[in-house]
């Protein structure tokens, strides 16, 4: 891979834009198409591209295996935790009304947190699956 200058430099150029696009899709999710799942897959795509071009070891230096393993339950915890917080505020599970004064703002906040949880879990799971496949047989 040492000789593929175009690939290596090109990848480095593209990586930040992939992440940016992932965040765009993430934060656009409560208004239009997009959301945590799609954004998570795009973000994981960045990790996968990096691993393909620079090797698994380099990718795991940036996003370690341990981090990926923690991300999977952590995202679900953020999601479920949003519901628990709404219960503690005196509303039903995943009822966002208590998060802000205005009904719509409250729901926007609620969806934002839930989508954040989805993003963390999906990107973690995608990366973990890729690591598991690539790491086989070493």
């Amino acid at each position: 891979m040492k000789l593929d200058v175009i690939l290596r430099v090109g990848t480095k150029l593209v990586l930040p834009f992939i992440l940016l696009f992932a965040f765009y899709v993430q934060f656009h999710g409560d208004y239009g198409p997009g959301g945590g799942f799609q954004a998570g897959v795009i973000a994981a795509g960045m990790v996968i591209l990096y691993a393909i071009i620079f090797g698994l070891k380099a990718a795991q230096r940036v996003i370690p295996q341990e981090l990926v393993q923690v991300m999977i339950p952590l995202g679900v915890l953020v999601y479920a935790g949003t519901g628990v917080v709404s219960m503690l505020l005196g509303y039903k599970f995943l009822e966002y009304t208590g998060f802000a004064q205005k009904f719509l703002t409250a729901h926007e906040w609620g969806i934002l947190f839930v989508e954040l949880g989805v993003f963390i879990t999906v990107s973690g799971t995608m990366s973990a699956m890729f690591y598991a496949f690539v790491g086989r047989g070493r």
Partner: protein
Amino acid sequence: MMGADVLSAVKPHFPILVVLLPLLGALFCALIQRGTLSWLLTACIAFVLPVISGLMLFDVLKTGQTITYELGNWEAPFGIVYKVDGLSALVLTLITVIGAVIMPFARRSVAYEIDSHLQSWFYTMYLLCLAGLLGITITGDAFNAFVFLEISSLSTYVMIALGKHRRALLASYQYLIMGTIGATLYVVGIGLLYVVTGSLNFDDIASRLGPAMAERSGPVMAALGFITVGLSLKIALFPMHVWLPNAYAYAPSFATVFLAGTATKAAIYLLVRLLFTVFGTTVPFESMPVGHVLLALGLAGMFIAAFAAVFEENAKRMLAYSSVSQMGYIVLGIGLANVSGLTGALAHIVNHAVMKTALFLALGAVVYRIGTVRLGDLSGLGRKMPWTMVAFAIAGMGLMGIPGTAGFITKWYLVLGALEKGWWVIVFAIVLSSLISVVYMGRIMEVLWFREPSQAAEKAKDPPMMMLLPLWVLALATIYLGFDTRLSVGVAAPVAEALFGGIK
């Protein structure tokens, strides 16, 4: 006073907590990655759940009203609603009680059979599976039930694959294929129902099904077929049972113990819920021959699986085949399509769970001591592990249906159901199939008690107290449920009546 305040504040949230607590527990188990700590957390959650579901069962029985909970406060046909009526409260209580009673057994058994770095993942999967099964039982939404079905199934595949034996992977894969086909057929059925009724809520579908049937009956019939076959795969009804013996035989002992008592029961619950609450009794049992098909397959399973059990050399596989045969009884009770038959079926869900869990607990203890469950290696264990094997014998007698045990009660009600229909052949078949179970249980008893100890059994002794305790609790429950039927038939009978009477 403080406690009462907290209880009244938490009580409205009981339906969601039953699913939420194991789910959160699973996440924490995945995060902490310490085997013993995970076990402690799992045990704490597992012991809180039966309290919650027991209180709900008590409430439902006392007031006769259903408990509902709207997720996110979205109203019934639009949002997901959790609904606890007599039927779901019964199955919820059963699953949570089994899930709690077996927890003391788990620590040593899991520590012995599963590598230390995987133990925490195992408890994660256990709690996820528990959350899934409880979710199936509590939800009032057809698609939500599918999601929970998948959660419980996926975690089950992982639990089975964690078995020590190399064939565990193959067994898990086999179940993965079959289970996925089952879930797919179920969701195809739900999709058809959605097309004709425009709803996913069980009650809402039920109320719209009549007009939909009058307009176009084809899709409804097809949906009924898809759903019945899909869930039969999950139940391991006779020709669709092939995955079960291997899955039970090669899974870690604790996983087998848990799955044998709960997994197929939740699928049975879902089938009963759909056949009776959603389709109403007329569509499946009068317009379509679903009742007769279930009857025939139940009968076939009772015999063929029992015969397979007689010739089995691996004790775990023998009990697994016996599970398929016992599922036959339950499905037979549903297929009889009368109150006595359904009462027997529902009571047998409880009784079979108690007995089979006890039997697999005993085999789990054997694995813990001698590391094998081949029939040849078990010889003479009765004298080496007396406490384990006496409990095994008690639960085994329950399985045969000897009077004074839980098994007798349910067979009695099944016989009553068949007599009401005037089907003497089925009465005869129930008795004959019980005799076959006497043969296979007798075979294993003979090996255990009347032979010289094998080389493997020579040094065996009873397992520690923590492992014996759950076994004896369930073995004594087998006898208790044989005399005091308030907990099984007493709950099942009004539920069965409501299922037949409530829907016109």
